[in-house]
């Protein structure tokens, strides 16, 4: 097995008693004090995550916008400077190579944040799409990424920065300093809570992490591992590439049709014909949420039955610590995907009842 990579926060994770696991080629903290306590801290107070394993590509030059319009699903022209957008890199079949966030840092300079496990694949795909009039650079080594998430996130971060965070709206970002460290602070996240993602040079990640933990202690801030990151995003029905998304699931099927722009301003892009058809006529199947109504926890890969028919497998499934329910996601034929539909999940050979429910499972109070 290839050597696992370590983020600049490895030492502080070990000091904090983190349990480390391999994830996407990286040695990452899966939990510190305990998954459930970490999950609840993010819902009720705040959590700090190391997500430095994520990759960053920069696309710059006069042709950058046109290139991104061609290779992403969303309308990049709608992005003002300082704005970010959830998007994806579709294949001709309408399924994503990866889901990404596109940040517009200047008229002709963009940052793409990509999944760690997909970095090489994304890079090869983007190269193969022939960036014209722009430069594509892998800047992953230039950034560590910290996510500060939860209802207390702004109150914790504001005293450490001159950036007026109240002016940084959802999916917007600002560049400045936090406790003297040069950063880019984005109001984005993967937990279903308010919060920020902070891009910082790797050399500054350790002192910034320690300062944030210290500053947030009185407001309930705790370090949070990838374990709770997964249960938090599942409660909020945010897709995980490799589970709920892959190169066979179209964006329309995954419930991400809203990000597919058919705006004339965007023009042609990879995968458009399939996605346009599915947006107009509906996709043949849909990613839906279910609750296990019997006893048992549905997990990734477990078979799902609808009457006598095997209809698919659980893409993500877990105990949901905030909701205290067993929940999951599955692709169902579109005609049979309505909330209230009764299903069975096969848990170690036994069929356990479950029901399709509206999603997201959890929506934060505003």
């Amino acid at each position: 097995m290839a050597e696992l990579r370590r983020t600049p926060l490895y030492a502080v994770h070990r000091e904090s008693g983190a349990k480390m696991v391999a994830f996407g080629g990286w040695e990452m903290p899966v939990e510190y004090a305990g998954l459930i306590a970490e999950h609840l801290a993010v819902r009720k107070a705040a959590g700090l995550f190391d997500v430095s394993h994520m990759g960053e590509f920069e696309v710059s030059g006069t042709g950058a916008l046109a290139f991104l319009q061609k290779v992403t699903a969303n309308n990049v022209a709608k992005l003002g400077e300082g704005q970010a957008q959830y998007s994806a890199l579709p294949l001709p079949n309408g399924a994503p190579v990866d889901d990404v966030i596109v940040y517009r840092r200047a008229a002709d300079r963009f940052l793409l944040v990509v999944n760690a496990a997909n970095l090489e694949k994304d890079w090869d795909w983007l190269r193969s799409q022939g960036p014209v009039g722009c430069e594509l650079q892998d800047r992953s080594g230039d950034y560590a990424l910290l996510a500060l998430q939860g209802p207390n996130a702004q109150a914790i971060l504001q005293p450490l920065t001159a950036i007026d965070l109240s002016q940084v709206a959802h999916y917007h970002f600002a560049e400045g300093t936090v406790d003297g460290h040069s950063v880019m602070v984005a109001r984005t996240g993967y937990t279903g809570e308010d919060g920020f993602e902070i891009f910082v040079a790797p050399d500054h990640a350790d002192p910034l992490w320690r300062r944030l933990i210290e500053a947030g202690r009185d407001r309930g801030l705790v370090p949070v591992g990838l374990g709770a990151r997964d249960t938090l995003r599942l409660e909020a029905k945010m897709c995980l590439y490799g589970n709920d998304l892959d190169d066979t699931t179209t964006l329309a099927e995954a419930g991400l049709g809203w990000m597919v722009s058919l705006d004339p301003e965007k023009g042609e892009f990879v995968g458009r014909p399939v996605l346009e058809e599915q947006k107009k006529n509906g996709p043949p199947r849909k990613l839906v949420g279910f609750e296990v109504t019997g006893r048992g926890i549905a997990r990734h890969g477990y078979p799902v039955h609808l009457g006598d028919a095997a209809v698919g497998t659980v893409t993500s499934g877990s105990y949901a610590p905030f909701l205290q329910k067993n929940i999951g996601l599955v692709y169902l034929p579109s005609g049979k995907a309505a909330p209230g539909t009764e299903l069975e999940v096969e848990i170690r050979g036994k069929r356990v009842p479950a029901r399709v429910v509206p999603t997201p499972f959890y929506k934060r109070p505003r």
Partner: protein
Amino acid sequence: MYPEDRRYTKEHEWVRLEGDRGIVGITQYAQEQLGDVVFLELPEVGRKLSPGEGFGTVESVKAVSELYSPVAGEVVEVNSALAQKPEVVNSDPHGAAWMIKVKLADPAAVAGLMDARAYQAYVESEAK
């Protein structure tokens, strides 16, 4: 750290003798590896078990783990309180989180399992 009043298996179960019965649970090491336990599936009273046979499952938020009987015999009692409070497996694995009591086919066989010192050494070798 591991109580000396009982024996242990490589699958991280413990068994403590009480007359002709064996009380069975999972070890501190096992609960640490699992993380927050949220679900248990335990057998019915009357189930006959052979050594090494699966008698249920324990699930944390992240993982599923099979439970293996350290002994042969018949299940005579099940700790039904754990269904409501599975977190006790994390807080008191060697005490309140006992899982089943088994009427032993051969109480003397328990002595063939690892004692606390041998188990401790085994866990340390696993952790490396």
